[in-house]
């Protein structure tokens, strides 16, 4: 499948590992839960590790590990759950995470402008979306009123 990353449409090279699913590739993401339990073995088995954060996760738990991740996914349980917007700003600003920050799960195309402003730079949209059309969402506004991650850290 294709995703939007840094304003380009590219092929997705990452696989989301379910908890308990056998590690058989690099470029796989794991849940915070699994990371906390299997941190050491995951680091041995994989070269490129991604982390999936959901709103219920406490990011304080993984702050010391941020350097291990090439990708952090913000996994939306429902698009109306806005907690991950704050998580994104904190990761980018206060905790200085510079890798790929990707929205996955139940977010919608109409949120990608706001998401890009809080520091999300990649979007794994659900299949029903026209990804070329969705790219326009990044340019919905040419002006903004407030500082945010895309022009100033949190």
């Amino acid at each position, binding site marked *: 499948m294709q995703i939007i990353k840094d304003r380009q449409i590219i092929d997705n090279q990452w696989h989301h590992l379910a908890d308990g699913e056998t590690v058989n590739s690099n470029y796989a993401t794991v849940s915070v839960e699994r990371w906390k339990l299997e941190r050491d073995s995951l680091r041995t088995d994989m070269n490129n590790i991604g982390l999936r954060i959901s709103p219920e996760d406490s990011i304080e738990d993984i702050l010391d590990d941020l350097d291990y991740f090439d990708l952090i996914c913000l996994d939306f349980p429902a*698009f*109306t759950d806005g907690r991950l*917007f*704050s998580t994104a700003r904190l990761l980018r600003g206060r905790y200085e995470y510079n890798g790929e920050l990707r929205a996955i799960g139940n977010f919608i195309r*109409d949120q990608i402008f*706001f998401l890009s402003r809080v520091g999300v730079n990649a979007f794994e949209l659900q299949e029903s979306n026209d990804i070329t059309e969705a790219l326009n969402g990044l340019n919905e*506004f040419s002006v*903004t009123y*407030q500082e945010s991650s895309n022009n100033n850290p949190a």
Partner: protein
Amino acid sequence: MYQYNEVDQTLVDERVRQFRDQTKRFLAGHISEDQFRPLRLMNGLYIQTHAPMLRIAVPYGLLSTKQLRMLAYIARTYDKDYAHFTTRQNVQFNWPKLERVPDILADLARVQMHAIQTSGNCIRNVTSDHLAGISPDELEDPRPYCEIIRQWSTLHPEFAFLPRKFKIAVSGAKNDRAATQLHDIGLYLITGEDGEIGFEVLAGGGLGRTPVIGQVVRPFLQKKHLLSYLEAILRVYNQLGRRDNKYKARIKILVRETGIEKFSALVEKEWQSIKIGMELDASEIDRMKGFFKAPQYKLQPDHGNLADAEKQNSEFSTWLQHNTVSHKVAGYSAVYISLKSPNDPPGDITDKQLDTIADLADRYSFGQVRSTHRQNLLLADIEKSKLFDLWQELQAQNLATPNIGSLADMICCPGLDFCSLANAGSIGVAKEINDVFDNLDYVHDLGEIKINMSGCMNGCAHQSVGHIGILGVDKKGVEWYQLTLGGSSENKAALGERLGPAVAKDQVVEALSTILNVYTDKREDGERFLDTVNRIGITPFKKQVYANH
């Protein structure tokens, strides 16, 4: 008032384009009903009983005559020739067509207006004192700070999907006319210990199903830290506010469940991390103040001879007494335009009346009009010698009903007639009350009484802070009405106390008469209804109302 620059204009124009595209994709079936709902709500668009309802922002209640004429045009062109003013100083249209809403928003953008964040789980339109800048009891004009907050909150990317709606009010006067303590965040401009003016910050107030009075989070905040502090409160709320139950999702529940001390500590901690770098420059505050400078008052205004005019015309005299309010500049008055004519739903106004008021404001009041929390309008700067002429012209358009502050100045939600949530036909009951209490002398003798009536427990008419609150409830398909006494949204904010079991629809007016009889019987010299209730408690009222039950 604030004037858009190129950035402001671009933003509203792009917002119109965005919503036009969203509406098109929704109508084409590319966006689901569930996905479209929050998007349309963030543009003020509800789907109601009969048709969509569009709520338009009137930032802190200030309107130019150009904007007023646009509202009249929209009423004529897209609606049924009328508009409705709300309790949060905004305007609603009850009959637009969904597919025309983008055109309405485009028309609004031409006069620097929008419907951004007038609904939805986001930071709503900021409200303030309708007497801002003209009231003798004011410490500082709150409107520059309202505009700063408006801009900061508009399309704030982090806070567009909050647990629930979020309302902010700012008051700069000794007497609170903005129901500040009943907002998610309330800001009072106050003088600090060393003489510096800053803000007292309250959080966790709110009306609706579980009314709560806000508590102090920070007793004094320097002006320069306004936005970082708001951002800290919002971030704590966005992360910790409940999302499992929409009736427990407002910040008032978070503050209550966390406890004010712990909540304040969380906010302070967050604030310490972000306050550096987010300061408001003094020059930015001054720039905003520049938009709200006093108009060119006459140095020697003509006071006219009001006493003579009053002697000659008792109707004018009554109106003068009830519908005008003192102004900080000698020789001027502020004039309320009552939107509570007994024959029309409270807050409703026709396109013709809107045009008339625009003309009057151009001629008499520096081209500006204000909307109030009690669903009336205000002409803020009228030279006293012009009051009689103005009254005559208002009279001709049914806009001089002399009932401001009286029981006839009811706040009432649209109720069953329009709203899909309502249990009760509040407008109908308001009409009955007006029909029975049609003796103006009696109504005036009763003095200040705030009646607030909501058609369901969502409480859009703020019944819990009405001196007399009336709440429509549904019992097995029949409308009943719950009465409360002693509520107030002023400085000593209080929630009304339940009088007793709900009364049947045809008993509401009788119960009200009984309550008023108890008051006139028990009141002491010059005592307002609310003061009597506070002094004697609700028991004497209760005894009489339920005497025959």
